């Protein structure tokens, strides 16, 4: 069910460059190679247009024909969002154990690490956005489907606490199939952990912007992703509690095409705004500046 969600957008037509046949996995490759669609030419999943890699990059991995948003990794996400060269990673060495002794969990983690160059499914740190110091995070859809285990929960909770202490805005890009099955009840408890951490930000009156990217479902959507002071989403991003297939089984009827998309959520009042990737930086920058501007003195 969750797997389908991700696979739906992963079928690229690859015109070989030769690189992909030799994934000498251990060696971390530059983010640009790992995070973004590979090959010289890409076929758009939205409209079928053939796009040159260079052109795709220029359009921030969106289709210039139909505005389809390609999946990108956490590092690229942060690079295209914050002020150039300002990102300082936090907690990059924080990684999972296998608390339940779940079969094959270690192997899955290893494979995810090799595929993404990250030790866990979210990248967090500090950066500048339009010159304003912020805490930023991006979930990595390629790391076990962005699922949230203890280490992901811990990195996010620490980012929230950092934002609370420093009274800086937190901008968090979500992309997750939900809780990580392999950690059982402990993964469910990460929803609780991030919720208590968020109370600190609330007390410190620190701004939390939740940016929904494709897909955000399950335990992540039913916790911090839905708790932003402001919630924005990329066009077409799927955002909902239960996966489409589960809902279809429950309803025993087919659902509208736009079910659970960002636009569906906007219509039903669940999010503030649908923002194109090319306008994201500008929108987030404006919001962050509005919430950190000193303003006029109040009756002093």
């Amino acid at each position, binding site marked *: *069910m*969750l*797997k389908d969600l991700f696979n739906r957008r992963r079928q690229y037509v690859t015109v070989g460059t030769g690189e992909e046949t030799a994934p000498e996995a251990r060696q971390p490759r530059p983010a640009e190679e790992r995070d973004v669609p590979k090959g010289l030419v890409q076929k758009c999943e939205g409209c079928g247009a053939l796009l040159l890699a260079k052109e795709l990059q220029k359009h921030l991995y969106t289709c210039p024909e139909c505005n389809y948003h390609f999946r990108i990794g956490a590092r690229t996400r942060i690079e295209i969002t914050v002020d150039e060269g300002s990102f300082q990673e936090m*907690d990059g*060495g*924080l*990684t*999972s*154990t296998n*608390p*339940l002794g779940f*079969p094959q969990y270690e192997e899955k983690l290893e494979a995810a690490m090799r595929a993404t160059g990250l*030790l866990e499914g979210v990248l967090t740190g500090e950066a500048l956005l339009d010159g304003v110091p912020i805490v930023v995070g991006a979930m990595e859809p390629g790391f076990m489907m962005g699922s949230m*285990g*203890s*280490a992901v*929960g*811990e990195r996010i*909770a620490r980012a929230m606490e950092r934002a609370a202490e420093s009274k800086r805005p937190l901008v968090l890009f979500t992309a997750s199939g939900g*809780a990580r*099955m392999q*950690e*059982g*009840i*402990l*993964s*469910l*408890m*990460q*929803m*609780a*952990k991030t*919720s*208590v951490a*968020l*109370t600190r930000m*609330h007390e410190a009156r620190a701004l939390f912007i939740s940016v929904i990217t494709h897909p955000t479902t*399950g*335990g992540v*959507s*039913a*916790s*911090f*992703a*839905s*708790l932003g002071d402001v919630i924005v989403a990329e066009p077409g991003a799927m*955002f*909902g*509690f*239960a996966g489409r297939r*589960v*809902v279809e089984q*429950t*309803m025993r009827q087919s*659902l509208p095409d736009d*079910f*659970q998309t960002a636009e569906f959520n906007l219509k*039903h*009042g*669940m999010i503030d705004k649908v923002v194109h990737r090319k306008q994201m930086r500008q929108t987030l920058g404006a919001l962050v500046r509005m919430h950190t501007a000193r303003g006029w003195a109040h009756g002093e």
Partner: protein
Amino acid sequence: MANELDFERPIAELKAKIAELKAFMEKNGIDLQGEVDKLEERLKELTETTYANLTPWQRVQLARQIGRPTTLDYIRGLCDEFVELHGDRHFADDLTIVGGVGLIDGQPVTVIGHQKGRDTKENIRRNFGMANPEGYRKALRLMKQAEKFGRPVVFFIDTPGAYAGMSAEERGQSVAIAENLFAMAGLRVPTLSIVTGEGGSGGALGLGITDRIYMLDYAWYCVIAPESAAAILWKDAKLGPKAAEVMRLTARDLLDLGVIDRIIEEPMGGAQKDPEWMVRRVREAVIEGLRELVAVPIDELLRARYHKYRQMGTYVERP
């Protein structure tokens, strides 16, 4: 025992045999007491070994048995007086989550819980314990009301999961649950929850961030129901028993993992075998827990709540 489970069948059969023998004795005036005694001894042994060696999957099945006390049964046993309150003030009254105000030994409390049906007809009305967003919003309203009047909140958790349907998605199932998590994290009154049957996923957690968490012996609590876990992990919902083995979802597992504070014992074979005893036992445990909690200053309680949830999970830090 109309609704015995597969693994309980040998017990039921032996019971039937004993009854038959007794009836035969009476009818024909033949003394077979020695035989009956022997069989009854065997029944006792068989019952004990069966329930002492339950697999996680058998526990999951027991936790789902109709006939276990429901939230309203626990409320009736717990509160000397109780007034049920309805509605979320936005959309509807969800019959899957019940709640209200009560008195226990003179102590005002708010009680909120998932309500399953006691038969199929009621189960349809209660949506089989799967709440819609308005249920979680009713719970939120009652929590905030409890906070305003400074009374503790007791939660009864018994749900296979939150409802996954078009209506639930349209009305914001995610945000309804998320807002409850956030509210419970900071609620300025003592809180206690008890998983009485099924603790399914976010639907359970939506009533479950509390100062104390108790669990009945045969209840299960997990990130997802075992059948759904199997469907995701191995693409086969029939592998639920296997998922139950590896997911660590029994009361004992959760105590070992540091998620719950206490296991409340059940009658042999489960709460459904002696509902009245179970309800009394839960009342005792709740009173004991609440007495401890109300004695602690609220700021201290909130600090402890923060640390308890903040440290959940395991991870390592590489240099």
